[in-house]
């Protein structure tokens, strides 16, 4: 699945937060987006996934323009995001969180829920098996029946990744997956992302932990004050004086 972000812009009463940003994510590619705080990275994610309306530009997924669709519609096309601050369903168990994410559930229709119990039960069983696989893959077995709200920060990030997988997404946008995660779990999370990428899922990742991100992605884009100021392999980008300037200027040496 190919994601094209074309000249996407967003301004709040004259203040430009995202300025004509274009990024192309090829099939099965893994790309990082870095930049100082306030550079517009998270806003860009919201614009791409439909949580904010762009003033200008378009988002094209596999040749289909989705820039005017709702967030849910865009997700149904196979592009799913996670959040900087995890948004788990706190009062539901890990298993229920994952079950809820499965697409096209006949039991979400009330008529089926009441009058076609066998159809719904069969599908629940099927989804349950996929959930078991996902739980095993993410090594969340120990907490499978705990409330999601009680998980550690890192486990919540894993759960959000798991929910994205359950939707069958082909492109996943991760918003700071390593923030607030302990170093051991960062390694674990990285290896899961790498494994999923090897299966053909494309990733676009915002991250402040440049070390962990550089080991993961093939290409980095750098944002500063709403604009893309550099792109290239991690080695090229991190050697770029303009990038060093932006980071030091942004107070993040």
């Amino acid at each position, binding site marked *: 699945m190919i994601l094209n972000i074309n000249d996407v812009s967003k301004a709040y009463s004259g203040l430009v937060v995202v300025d004509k940003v274009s990024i192309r994510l090829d099939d099965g590619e893994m790309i990082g987006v870095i930049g100082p705080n306030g550079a517009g990275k998270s806003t860009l994610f919201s614009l791409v*996934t439909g*949580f904010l309306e762009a003033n200008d530009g378009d988002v094209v997924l596999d040749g289909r323009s989705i820039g005017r669709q*709702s*967030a*849910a*519609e865009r*997700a*149904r096309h196979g592009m*799913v*995001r*996670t*959040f900087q601050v995890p*948004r*788990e*369903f*706190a*009062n*539901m168990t890990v298993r*229920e*969180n994952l*079950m*809820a*994410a499965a*697409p096209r*559930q*006949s*039991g*979400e*229709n*009330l008529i089926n*829920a*009441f009058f076609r119990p066998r159809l*719904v039960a069969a*599908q*629940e069983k099927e989804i349950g098996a996929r959930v078991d696989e996902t739980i095993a893959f993410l090594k969340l077995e120990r907490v499978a029946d705990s*409330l999601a709200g009680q998980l550690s920060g890192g486990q919540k990030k894993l759960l959000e990744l798991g*929910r*994205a997988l359950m*939707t069958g997404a082909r492109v996943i946008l991760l918003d700071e997956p390593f923030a607030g995660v302990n170093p051991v779990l960062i390694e674990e999370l990285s290896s899961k992302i790498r494994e999923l990428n090897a299966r053909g899922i494309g990733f676009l990742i915002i991250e402040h932990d440049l070390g962990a991100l550089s080991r993961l992605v093939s290409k980095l884009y750098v944002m500063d004050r709403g604009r893309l100021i550099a792109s290239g392999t991690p080695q090229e980008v991190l050697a770029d004086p303009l990038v060093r300037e932006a980071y030091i200027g942004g107070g993040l040496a």
Partner: protein
Amino acid sequence: MDAYLIAIGTIAGIYLLLALGLNLQFGLTGLINFGHVGFFCVGAYTSAILSTKGVPIPLSLAAAAALAMLAAWPLGIISIRLREDYFAIVTLGFSEVVRLVVTSEGWLTNGVQGIAGIPRIFRAGGGEAQAVLMLGLTLAFCLISIVAMMRIVRSPFGRMIEAIRDNEEAVRSLGKEPARFKMQVLLLGSMLAGISGALYAHYIGYISPDQFIPFVTFQVWMAIIMGGVGRISGTIAGVLILMFFLEGSRFLRDVAPFIPEVSMASIRLGVIGLALILFTIYRPQGLMGDFTKR
């Protein structure tokens, strides 16, 4: 005393239908509906007007349910996407609009004088037999609603509305439209309120606009908060607690005869208010537990 218990049971059943609807909306889905009494009012007036004009009562009951849903539908269209606090204000306003309409459209509703002589649902037999049948019918509606509610809670639909309660944005990020689910929940809750209102009208026999003030909504809120939000057992317990305080304070005069009659209504309110405060301090999750597990 028997007649008294039957009467309390019937009123409790009517409250329970209201509370089950609100628990579905708020407890399970997170919709803050401050206008529940509006749908109760629509149901009561619909069945009262139709049945006094000679429409058979089964039909007028069905019409009450349908019209309550029909009233909820446009309200949902304009307000279901609002943030929860705004939705609360809009629904509160809606119930007041309903009350003002039935107050001023005298040609249809007889205005402030209200509608008297609403036929009872069961007319055969003596007074006691009628009362028992009415209690049975009310509890049958409650039972059907409880079974249906349990079905919903265990279904993928139920899982999705709980997810919406916990985090709407995350639901959207997974490719599901919260508005569709919230609309259905609003309609279902309104249907229950409509049926409840119709039963109330036929049971009491006389309705007037001043019976449909926002206070009714908040009594139902108190019930589900005291019982335990989000749980069906909590809803039942909450209605029982509410009835206990409403009715129990009647007997307060036996122990405290110095309280004048006119102060009693305020004292009853005070007692319920105090109970609500104590619950939120000492048992915020309600009598029957919390959000966590069924």
